[in-house]
């Protein structure tokens, strides 16, 4: 069964450093997403991406964050100058079509900023 794959599973970084979280969505999917879950809290939407551009972003997704689909298969989330409060589980998801199909989630990347 096709699945969304995220790497790494766990990333530890120093405060102020840049990190790139990587995702390989399901191959025939057109919509890609990043969500964040701070420990013990709800899952929060960060950004959605379609046709090589951002479709929607939340207020969390400020200039510190960027997304890219560099090679037609990978979908990355870059966090510049990480802060302690960026420590969270980051989930990538993808869906086939707008509106009518569910999003499939990856297994998540646990980001720890020290």
């Amino acid at each position, binding site marked *: 069964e096709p699945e969304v794959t995220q790497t790494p599973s766990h990333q530890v970084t120093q405060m102020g450093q840049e990190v790139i979280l990587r995702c390989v969505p399901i191959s025939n999917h057109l919509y890609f997403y990043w969500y964040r*879950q701070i420990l013990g809290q709800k*899952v929060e939407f960060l950004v959605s991406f379609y046709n090589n551009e951002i479709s*929607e972003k939340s207020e969390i997704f400020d200039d510190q964050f960027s997304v890219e689909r560099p090679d037609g298969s990978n979908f990355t989330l870059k966090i510049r100058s990480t802060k302690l409060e960026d420590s969270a589980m980051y989930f990538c998801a993808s869906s086939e079509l707008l509106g009518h199909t569910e999003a499939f989630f990856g297994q998540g990347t646990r980001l720890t900023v020290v």
Partner: protein
Amino acid sequence: AQTVTQSQPEMSVQEAETVTLSCTYDTSESDYYLFWYKQPPSRQMILVIRQEAYKQQNATENRFSVNFQKAAKSFSLKISDSQLGDAAMYFCAYRSPKAAGNKLTFGGGTRVLVKP
């Protein structure tokens, strides 16, 4: 903006028994989608069941079923014949088909404990 509320932080159920998780949501839209996701200790988000608002019939997936009350904006999940593997966090989620970004709005989650 849509909001999703799960009022039960934790529910405990005996193995083989039934447990019902509540979810309410706030929206002004008439057409939308509702989902229940399961998050086991591995923390991956796994889709359990989905419901389209235009369908009156409640969705069912094996031991999982929903009670969708559109007028009351309620979407509860019933887990029948609970198994140890059902122990997890369960998140209710809402999606508008009109939203440009197709995003999911999640509730705060309910932790389900299954006692052997």
